[in-house]
């Protein structure tokens, strides 16, 4: 954007939620479905964009993508137990949990590999912040500073949380197939 353009537009126009949805809706839905299952994900993503609509005047400078991930991450915290339970079940049985939600059941048919089960064990045992930071970094591919702004935590906390999560992750991956047999730890 040119300087002239910038000066002619001292205030950025409010983002259009429909446009934001077109840009980021599918990606967010996929991210959330991977964390809490397809049904809950629809609620989370719908709520994310409604909050974004209500707070669009507070959209910080910079891309809206990280901002939306931040809103979604906060909403996902309400479903922490669901996410953890699913991960534990996946780690234990190689399948997503036997829920009343039929869509999840159908989606979870495939048996997981040993590696998948080890990863599920690690993710289930991670404290909430470490899990959020790890997934925002590895899956959403946000940078440290974006994650810090997104979660409203210091940059150092992001680095620390990511480091700790990765240490556990690497240890589990290096431990071999038996790792998924270890007891599940707490996640909150």
């Amino acid at each position: 954007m040119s300087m002239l353009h910038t000066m002619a537009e001292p205030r950025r126009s409010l983002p259009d939620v429909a446009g934001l949805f077109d840009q980021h809706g599918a990606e967010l839905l996929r991210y959330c479905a991977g964390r809490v299952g397809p049904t809950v994900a629809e609620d989370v993503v719908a709520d994310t964009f409604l909050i974004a609509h209500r707070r669009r005047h507070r959209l910080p400078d910079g891309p809206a993508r990280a901002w939306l991930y931040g809103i979604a991450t906060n909403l996902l915290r309400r479903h922490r137990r669901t996410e953890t339970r699913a991960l534990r079940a996946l780690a234990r049985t190689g399948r997503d949990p036997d829920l009343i939600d039929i869509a999840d059941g159908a989606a979870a048919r495939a048996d997981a590999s040993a590696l998948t089960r080890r990863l599920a064990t690690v993710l289930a045992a991670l404290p909430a912040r470490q899990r959020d930071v790890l997934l925002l970094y590895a899956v959403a591919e946000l940078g440290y500073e974006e994650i810090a702004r997104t979660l409203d935590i210091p940059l150092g906390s992001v680095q620390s949380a990511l480091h700790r999560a990765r240490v556990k992750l690497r240890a589990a991956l290096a431990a071999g197939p038996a790792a998924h047999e270890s007891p599940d730890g707490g996640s909150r």
Partner: protein
Amino acid sequence: MTDDPDLRGVREFHQERPGAAPGALDRVRRRVQTATAAPHAPRFLLPRWAAPAAAAAVVAAVVGGAAVLGAAGDGTPQPGGPTAGPGRPTSAASTAAEGTVALWLKYGAPVPVPAVFAQLDQAAAGNTLAVPHPGELLCSHTTMLTRSGPSPSPGSAPATAQAGVRCFEPEGLLEVPPPSAGDVKGQSPAEQLAAARDGFAAAGPGWGYPTASWLATLPTDPDLLLAGFRAGSRGPAEVDDLTRWQQYGRFLARVDPLLPAAQRAAFHRLMGRLDGLTAAEAFTVSGKRLYAVRLTSGTIADELLFEPGTGRLAGHVELTVGPGGGDPVPVRQELWKHVFQPAAGWAVPSATAPR
């Protein structure tokens, strides 16, 4: 972004988790558009009841059911529906939008909701559930109509009709991959079924793996049944009425062929407690009469279809109100029929293998 093995492993792990449900993006977009376009912007988060989502996705994806539209039992041809004889598997097919207008239900006179449930209970009590023979699968035939959004009158928007069949092992309702199924996440159909059986073996009968004998043990006291249902559901125990209605609908649709009359009546009593219910007669294109019990909440309406003669669940309709208001317009309609058929007919070797 670094591509270290541990981070790559997390990414791949995430990619292998369940993805979004079919049509989810459109449903969410509609919810967002509806809420943000409202004259009075919502002060609260869009509640869970605004999700025809789950109902649409889950009921469609899972249960299947049959093409009662011109139902197989009526002998009326169905667009894209089963073409073989009863019990023969058919592959999913779709038809063009043309000719779908007449397939939407026609609604008749309103009926008091308590009277509907009372009649359904009576009908169910007078009908004996079919019991699957050894080696038989429970197959659900579905005919589904969809259109992209609300319109002034049914059929004026582009619509599509589809029909399909899904088969399940009666014990645990484990889905048996269709004959044409390929590998999923590196697993052959036989491996998929084996994994499902392992999961059932590990968990046992329950809300996730219903069996006929387990369903018969469900409380017939509505309060006790609700307590069990809450415990078996994920998510918060207290939900709005539309969400609960959709949960009931999904579960009933799944277990309908196996659910005894007493437990079915208990579910009907639970459903009858919800606010926003109305009922009316509804007629298929072949003239088959159904009861349509609808729960309306805001701009969303969710409807379950019942067969008066048997008390069984026959379908599901998702409706929404257009931007101009007015009566809700169906945007998705499914009609189901369940049949028991020999596993060998489903043509998957694993389906006939000993358990």
